[in-house]
């Protein structure tokens, strides 16, 4: 990498700046819920067959990185005219590979990768804007990342993590233990919560996330992600089975203020998170260090999908001295707003219900039909059955009314429709909702309080000199207090008046 930097580049998640930067993560919004994370690259020549350098191909068009670099975040980017056809033929690929790739290219956004050697030719083709197609480029946030990250495990989504971080008091400067790291959505959200600057040295204590992952492949992927996102100084990732290995870092305590356990068996990890050596620990005599902050109450949240896990976790928590145990489950609903268009005057269109929108309209229509029927029936006709005749008449009348209605509606319509203000504004839930993610168990472990601590505090704040009562007091005392206050207010008012008079005199 070029360019010397004295301090670590701040993660784009934390301080994205105003513009997109090379080698930084950006989230492309292709359509409403279709997000694509990419690392923007400077064009240094032909790249992967593209004359414009690295290019993102989507069904919304092709977007050379060069068009997305050094623009304000949130910019709408126009698609470019990129030659995707001839490039594909130049590359050597197996027939099987090709088939699957072509298919993928058609439907899926595809990012070019860096495995081919970019020719160091200076001539980079200037991107030419296409007639149609656009995307937006957004700065990464944990919310966008959660929606777009590569899934390795079940993801902890925003409704859950926002509530969890609020309740476990994750704040700038806190230290959080997280096990397992999984796909990293909670990691990103929690590092934002505890961030209060990068530590300048090893001794410098800043907000930090200690993350644990036992699955080796996931660990490596996560490690790389953290480096790519410039979060190395803020997240300490360890590859470990915490049931057996505990939470110490090189034998030292991370001094955690808050804990999040997304593990199948939280109760097996809980004994490690004690203030004192737990009884379950087999080895005797050995020095035991607590991974918790000795000076503060520690908040915990465990994340389990099954109720059986919850009962065991809660039971273990009670035995280990956790208090304020509280279990909740979060139900989140997204709502869409739409214009509900019902009425006979609408033309048949998607999302339009061409039926009467109220009784009056229905009545009007029915009357019209009825009139036509009568008209038709009145017409002389020979040799046919009366009942049948009425039926056909009714049918014909209906058709005619429809035709007529269509005609009138087209005639009355303004030349340009305004579907955005027509109809009634309504809200609707998503077609599919998440009814259960997991149960969240919250608890607090107060700091230890020994006899000596108590004696010291008692010596510092001795009792017996109480002057007033705060809180609920009985009626008599309250009345007495109020009387005294009123007296005092009276005194003060008198004094103030006196003072005001004096000042007035002085001014004169």
């Amino acid at each position, binding site marked *: 990498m070029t360019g010397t930097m004295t301090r670590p580049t701040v993660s784009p998640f934390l301080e994205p700046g105003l513009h997109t930067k090379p080698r930084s993560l950006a989230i492309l919004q292709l359509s409403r819920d279709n997000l694509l994370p990419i690392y923007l690259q400077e064009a240094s020549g032909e790249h992967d067959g593209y004359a414009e350098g690295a290019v993102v191909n989507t069904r919304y068009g092709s977007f050379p990185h060069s068009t997305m670099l050094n623009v304000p*975040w949130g910019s709408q980017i*126009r698609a470019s005219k990129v030659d995707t056809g001839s490039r594909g033929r130049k590359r050597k690929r197996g027939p099987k590979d090709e088939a699957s790739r072509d298919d993928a290219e058609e439907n899926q956004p595809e990012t070019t990768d860096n495995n081919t050697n970019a020719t160091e030719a200076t001539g980079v083709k200037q991107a030419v804007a296409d007639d149609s197609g656009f995307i937006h480029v957004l700065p990464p946030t944990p919310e966008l990342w959660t929606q777009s990250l590569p899934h390795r495990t079940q993801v902890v989504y925003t409704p859950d993590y*926002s*509530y969890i*971080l609020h309740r476990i008091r994750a704040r700038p400067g806190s230290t959080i233990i997280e096990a397992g790291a999984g796909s990293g959505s909670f990691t990103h959200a929690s590092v934002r919560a505890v961030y209060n600057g990068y530590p300048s040295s090893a001794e410098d204590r800043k907000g930090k996330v200690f993350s644990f992952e036992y699955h080796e492949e996931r660990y490596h992927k996560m490690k790389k992600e953290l480096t790519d996102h410039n979060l190395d100084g803020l997240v300490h990732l360890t590859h470990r089975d915490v049931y057996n290995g505990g939470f110490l870092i090189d034998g030292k305590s991370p001094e955690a203020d808050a804990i999040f356990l997304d593990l199948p068996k939280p109760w097996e990890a809980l004994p490690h998170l004690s203030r004192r050596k737990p009884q379950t620990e087999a080895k005797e005599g050995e020095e035991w260090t607590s991974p918790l902050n000795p000076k503060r109450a520690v908040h915990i949240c465990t994340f389990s999908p099954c109720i059986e896990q919850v009962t065991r976790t809660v*039971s273990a928590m009670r035995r280990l001295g956790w208090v304020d145990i509280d279990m909740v489950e979060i139900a989140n609903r997204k709502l869409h707003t739409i214009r509900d268009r019902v009425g006979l005057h609408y033309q048949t269109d998607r999302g339009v219900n061409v039926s009467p929108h109220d009784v009056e309209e229905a009545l009007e229509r029915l009357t019209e039909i009825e009139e036509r029927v009568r008209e038709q029936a009145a017409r002389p006709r020979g040799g046919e059955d009366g009942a049948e005749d009425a039926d056909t008449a009714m049918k014909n009348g209906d058709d005619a009314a429809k035709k007529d209605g269509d005609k009138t509606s087209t005639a009355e319509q303004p030349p340009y429709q305004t579907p955005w203000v027509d109809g009634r*504004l309504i809200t609707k839930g998503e077609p599919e909702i998440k009814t259960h993610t997991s149960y969240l168990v919250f608890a607090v472990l107060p700091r230890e309080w020994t006899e000596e601590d108590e004696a010291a505090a008692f010596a510092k*704040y001795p009792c017996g000199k109480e002057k007033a*009562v705060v809180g609920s007091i009985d009626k008599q005392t309250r009345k007495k207090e109020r009387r005294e206050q009123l007296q005092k207010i009276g005194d003060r008012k008198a004094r103030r008046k006196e003072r005001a008079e004096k000042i007035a005199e002085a001014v004169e």
Partner: protein
Amino acid sequence: MHHSVIKPNSWVALKLPSGVTRVIQVTPNTSISLGKYGTFPANLILERPYYLTFEVQDKLPEDSFSRLRVVPPSELYADVFAEEDAECANPAAGPGSNNDAVIATAAGEEFSLVDAESGNVIARSTQEVIDENARQKLTQAEIEELKRDGTNAGKDVIAKLLLSHAALDQKTSFSLSKYKLLKTKKYIRRFQVLPIDVPTFSNWQLEERDASKILDIRAEMMGLVGCWGNVHYGGEDVFLEDPKATTEQGEEALAPLQEDLLAGRWLVVDDTGGLLVAAMAERMGVLYKEDDDETEEAAEEEDEETTEKADEETEQKLESETTSQKDTEMADEPTSETTTLARHPKRPRDNKPRDSDFAVPFSQTNTITVLHGASQPNLSFLNYWNFDVTAPQHPPHPLLNHLLTLSWLQLLKPELDTSYSTPPLTADPETLSTWKPSRRGNFHRKRRRYARVRHMVDSTRAGNFSGLVCASTMDPISILKHALPLLAGGAPVAIYSPSLEPLAILADCFSVARRTAWNSGHVAEIQGKTAEELEKWEGSEQFPLNPTLLLGTSIQTSRARRWQVLPGRTHPLMTERGGADGFIFTGWRAKPAEGKIAAKGKFKRRKVEETVSTPASA
């Protein structure tokens, strides 16, 4: 800052067995009364850790006060442990492996013993409650007597009540434990001390005080607003250099605005009395004063000073309460005029040269800018975190340098605002020295206010905010009309509303149909306007807002369902708070491309698969 121990004069929440929370200020050398749960000296909880459960003990003969005892968790959970142990001892239970199944069958048996017919179980237990007094052999007078000279923190009363219940043996184990719990809640003299942080405070305000004052904002919604607003620590403090303006210099000496230094700033519209600002300040690390060990001693010195003033403070507070005819039972609503902190006239004089009048006290980063509709912002709840926005001379508090407040008038028509447009006073040093101290003080105060207002207004109007967060009673469309141009590209918007309708109307302003029409060039009103003019679009009947300025707009709501977790009795709580659900609207500020722009291709209606692709690495 992280609530290690209970500090003198801090606000705390006392959780009582009945579930009631009392919020009080712990003033040294006072007594705290919990009504029927007893009275104890405040000094007994000072410097003690939070979250411990204390028991008010009986007065010892040699003491004039009740001592406290820390209740260990083993005692708090004694009943549950006994139940669990009984289950484990039950030979029918497997070797401790799958307890849950055992509990279920055990429970079933018990109910069938009560009554074979289904549904009668509930009827029976209700009846029991009704009959309770009849079955309780102790008379009310006897209970009262027990309570009066009851000992052992109320446990004796509970035990006697249980023992003298005639039908105790007829109760199922479930109804027995229910009965015991009911009596325990009523008589046990215990309490727990919680720190006043945003979650505790808002919960108390919501459940026990006036929920409408905080627009019914629940913890779930508070979390969502904070996350979708991307509110977080906005970088190390950066201060503008003191222009060293002399008293003779006027406006020309103001420190010029340096737009490139501005970063990590959030725009807020808060009608929750300051709770939203507090929540944001908590997320940005500017709500709590540092009280780590290094600063502990300094804090102590200050404490002594405050202790002296304690009397004066209480007196003041009580005064205001009488005047406003409030319930004097709890002194828990500090109104702005009673703020105890405002009265710290003596500031520790340090040797640093004084800042000149035009020195900008605000950091350029990590700030909250509050836009308010009245002439003064209503941020009275910040008093619980010892910050008073109205105090002219404030003891050190992180919010002082990080909270900017300006009215909509100051933002939109600053020339009409007196404090912004009146040029600063000037005077030569000789004249100044002849003045009385009070007049001189006024002179400096006015100059300082001028510099402050100038900076707040000018920096806000410079825009490029990192996000917008709202919980307001005002129409969100009107807020966005003026706030959207102030946001940096890609900045998130998170708007909370207790009801759905205003947000639905807002979201409709950004509907696909509106955006398409806007981009298509069919809207006559916008023809020939520059991108800048469109960014400050004033709104028309059909287009109240420029629909291309927000991206990915969406409305959502969350609700936490609480559960009871007990052996064999795990289920969701039967009732919870109703009322306003609360919704949030989210989106990102977009920078639309100039000129006509069309989407690619003819869109056919078909299900779009979620595509998951790995980002290519750099």
